[in-house]
């Protein structure tokens, strides 16, 4: 069971045990991480689960594309490592992944 660390904008860390196959968004909401509402439930329809992939991990993920890319165009403070966490599927090799949260969603 990989552990993913979510770091809120104010520096608060949340170490979350994720299930392989669930999305990072779901791991966060299941654990009650503040700052990831995931209002649409993972349908890539609302852009409220934005996070930055930590630099050490950035090269491990393909960049956002398609609907996710377009949705990210207007999130608050987009960065090159921005992803919608509902589109990041947790793999067994993601133990230790760190995701940083923006100051605000949408």
């Amino acid at each position, binding site marked *: 069971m990989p552990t993913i660390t979510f770091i809120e904008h104010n520096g608060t860390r949340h170490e979350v045990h994720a299930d392989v196959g669930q999305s990072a968004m779901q791991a966060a909401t299941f654990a009650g991480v503040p700052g990831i509402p995931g209002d649409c*439930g993972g349908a890539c329809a609302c852009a409220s689960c934005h996070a930055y992939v930590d630099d050490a991990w950035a090269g491990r993920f393909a960049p956002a594309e398609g*609907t996710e890319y377009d949705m990210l165009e207007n999130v608050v403070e987009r960065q090159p490592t921005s992803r919608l966490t509902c589109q990041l599927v947790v793999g067994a090799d993601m133990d230790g992944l760190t995701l940083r949260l923006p100051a605000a969603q949408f």
Partner: protein
Amino acid sequence: MSLDSVVIVGAGHGGVQVAISLRQEGFGGRIVLVNDEPGLPYQRPPLSKAYLLGKINATAMLFRPETFYADQRIELVHDRVAAIDRQNRRVMLDSGSALDFGHLVLATGAHNRPLNVPGSTLGGIFGIKTKADADFLSPLVKQARNVVVIGAGFIGLEFAAVAAAEGAAVEVLELGDRPMARAVSPQMSELFRAAHEGWGVKFNFRTGLAELEGEDGKVSAVTTSDGRRLPAELVVFGIGVIPNVQLALEAGLDIDNGIRVNSSLLTSDPHISALGDVAAFPCVQNGENLTRLESVQNAVDQGKLIAARLVGKPAPYTALPWFWTDQGNLKLQIAGLSIGADNYVTLGDAAAQQLSVLCFRGEELIAVESCNRPGDHVFARKILARPPALTPATAAAPDFDLKAWEAANRP
């Protein structure tokens, strides 16, 4: 006296959001969530698409795992509320027990408008509202060769797309003359009509349902209002919903196409709130007219607003409505309410299935429908949430781009 307990009736998007937000807002009292369905509270949108197709499992639909409710001291009660005793601020449960409340939140949702024709109690006829509905339906979709869908709204068309993808012959009966007529512009209807027909779905517009025929207790054919007989092993209907107001009605709360609430989402009893599909509220995007919205966004945002009010942060409800539906490869996102739209400007290319329709009422932009143009949707939500207003003339200019306009006019 400060509030010591909140009882929430209904564990859909709105009810669960109230419970979660109350704790996030620092509420320390008792929270009881009364759920009349078995299992943990779950999300509804996948029922007519991803879950039905088996692309996600039941766990992926849950709002939260069981441990979350325990950790947050949110009591899940599996029961039905039989009555509200307003005098004593107590709800009576089917099981015979009762729950005292400091504040009561009615998030009772809506139920499917039933088919009202001979044969509608036969097997093989489904509305899609609960996980149990989808569980019954899922294996049948894979087997059925002839499927009839009653109603070309969101649910009916989401299901039609799934059934067509599973290889069934799909006929859709619709009383109106175009798909999703109540929800989208004629231009967007046309794109979806063409797409569905491309998947093999056959539309029967201006056509109602006269009768359902059966064999061995199961549906075998549908007779249309114009006298045709369509074979069907499976019939799915989505002809609108009826708000679950019975409890509120019996308790003497004001009802007007839903439980009537004010701009703070309070009912006619100051100790009772209502939200989501069941609540009729003065909607700023609809000229303050009492409006009932059936959407995830509305339930979630109203849940957050009620929780904030209960911890002493009252505000009027003004959130911009938005909606989405996924049908086949089409993602339709709608921002705003298009009621009364009389002027449309389109961006993109309908033939390429990438189209945004800007809906104006006179000079005022009131809604934007985007099919496979999610960027437009996100910008539209920002533009609709505040002035300055985008005019039809500006939008109709060659090379107009929503993103560039939003950036140039950002306050």
